[in-house]
């Protein structure tokens, strides 16, 4: 039997759809850095501080989830082999709700207004449920490499769990009589960071690591086991919490962490064996993110402070990895669309620049350098927040995050500007 339904290879959305998400994301990283700069180590002393909660959601939702939504809207038609229905209307709706919901929720967490929390929760529920619906539908029909699809489907389920638990936590903040607040927060964090972020990185990594740098393939035992291991660990942790078991939920989280550690170690080994010799900034971002994930796992295993773990995962992985990918993907999409247009319009008199011209590698390296400095300083500030230098380190980290995010946005805007300029010349 042949299943040829929806078999078109020309179904990606207009370039403005993913670019709108990509361009808005760094603005939230700038806001998060601004909070750190303003609040100093108050944001890093404890994960329960209003500033820490606001920064966490600005990064997790405003930056990371925003980039991921844009990237998935781009890729779903290709994965599913069918256009996402009304993508040009659905995507701005998701983005509008995501942006306003994130701002409202973060404001509510910082200033404590019940109305802002409710508005934030409602808007984010709209954004993420529409997104999960659209993405889930496409992934359910998708054909392709089973292990990537499996990791992505599980990541989407984890996002749903994160959202449900987030709604529960907002209800508790508003006075609902539900006990065990800290346990629910741990589960919310686990499903968000290990589940949504971790498994999505796996699904993407199985594809792009071998593809970008011509490395050997991920071993089948890893692609079979890693994402299900993360998911199973989260289910166990949730079950233990729900049943009020004497066994701590950390046992379940431990299983999930081991899945991610395996993935990070294998990724670093594969990238060492790459055939493409170039040391481009995307590769360096991947190394940084994988090392940050391993460092976070080590601190967790040693029962260290949770705040540096949060910094390593949110900034090191959550901002670092998408940044590295954007610096490669945006130039390629720009070039590809322009080349296609050139063939269509037959304007061969217009000379197209190659990928590096859209985002120059030298400037991208400077951006990475500032980001790395910000990451290291903020980790130090979160690790030793009460030392004499703590407050200054936190502010310096915040400043670094602002500067690196402004630079990232500047590079992206330059790419879009070059795209539009050439596009105009092509007519």
């Amino acid at each position, binding site marked *: *039997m*042949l*299943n*040829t339904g929806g*078999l*078109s*290879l*020309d*179904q*990606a*959305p*207009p*370039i403005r759809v993913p670019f709108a998400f990509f361009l808005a994301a760094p603005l939230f990283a700038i806001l998060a850095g601004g909070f750190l700069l303003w609040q100093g180590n108050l944001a890093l002393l404890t994960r329960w501080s209003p500033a820490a909660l606001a920064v966490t959601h600005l990064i997790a939702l405003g930056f990371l989830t925003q980039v991921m939504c844009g*990237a998935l809207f*781009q*890729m*779903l038609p*290709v*994965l599913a*082999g069918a256009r996402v229905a009304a993508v040009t209307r659905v995507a701005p709706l998701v983005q509008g709700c995501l942006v306003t919901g994130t701002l409202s929720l973060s404001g509510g967490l910082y200033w404590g207004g019940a109305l802002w929390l409710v508005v934030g929760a409602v808007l984010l529920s709209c954004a993420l449920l529409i997104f999960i619906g659209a993405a889930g539908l496409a992934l359910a029909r*998708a*054909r*392709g*490499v*089973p292990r*990537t*699809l499996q990791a992505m489907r599980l990541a989407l389920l984890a996002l749903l769990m994160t959202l449900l638990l987030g709604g529960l936590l907002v209800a508790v903040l508003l006075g609902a009589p539900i006990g065990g607040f800290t346990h629910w927060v741990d589960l919310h964090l686990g499903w968000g960071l290990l589940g949504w972020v971790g498994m999505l990185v796996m699904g993407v990594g*199985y*594809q*792009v690591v*071998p*593809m*970008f740098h*011509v490395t*050997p*393939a*991920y071993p*089948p035992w890893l692609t079979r086991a890693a994402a299900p291991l993360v998911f199973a660990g989260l289910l166990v942790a949730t079950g233990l919490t729900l049943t009020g078991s004497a066994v701590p939920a950390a046992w379940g989280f431990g299983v999930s962490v081991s899945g991610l550690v395996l993935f990070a170690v294998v990724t670093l080994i594969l990238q060492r064996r790459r*055939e*493409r*010799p*170039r040391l481009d900034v995307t590769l360096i971002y991947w190394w940084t993110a994988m090392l940050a994930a391993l460092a976070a796992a080590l601190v967790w295993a040693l029962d260290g402070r949770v705040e540096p773990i949060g910094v390593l995962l949110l900034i090191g992985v959550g901002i670092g990895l998408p940044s590295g*990918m954007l610096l*490669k*993907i945006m130039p*390629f*999409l720009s*070039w*590809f*669309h322009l*080349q*296609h*247009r050139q*063939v*269509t319009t037959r304007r061969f008199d217009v000379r197209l*620049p*190659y*990928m*590096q011209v859209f985002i120059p590698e030298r400037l991208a390296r400077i951006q990475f350098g500032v980001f790395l400095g910000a990451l290291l300083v903020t980790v130090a500030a979160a690790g030793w927040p009460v030392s004499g230098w703590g407050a200054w380190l936190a502010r310096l980290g915040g400043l670094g995050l602002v500067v690196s995010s402004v630079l990232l946005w500047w590079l992206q805007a330059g790419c879009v500007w070059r795209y539009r300029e050439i*596009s105009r010349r092509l007519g």
Partner: protein
Amino acid sequence: MDNAASLPMTQVKEPPRGDSQNPAIPIHQASDTSMASIITDAFTQDHHACDHRLAAAEACVGRGDWSDIGTAAEALVSAMNRHFDAEEQTLFPRLAEIYRVAANPIEVMLSEHAQMRVLFEDLTEAVGRQDRDTCLGILETLHFLTQQHNSKEECVLYPMADGALKTQAGEIADLLAHG
């Protein structure tokens, strides 16, 4: 803005190297996968061979040895052209004869072949000028274009061809072996 592009990160693709797993065959559901994937296996393997040549050309440019670069670039272009010939002259026409539904994907593939051929010409010129930065820019762009292109062929067209051209699969796969 047009809407023709697809991300490299977004493509469905079996990892390219050193993996003996069969690629997923989502379109053609056959019980005997070894027989059912002759075209997919052969053409995917040839993609990987071209990937190796591109990486080798990049390594030569990095070292700056221009006599090696010329040879490596020529080997890359000739390997890719040979692959295109097998597809354009044999595989795609025979597939299109049997399944009209393949016409649209084939058209997209042919237009991307044309995009790559433009880059081949640019590469040859840049090697002639010994322009290192331009060579690296072209090879990077070619790499990403090729990867996303190969993904689509490996996940859609080749499995479809394996289903449609069972009796001719061996002969078509041999085109690459004996080029």
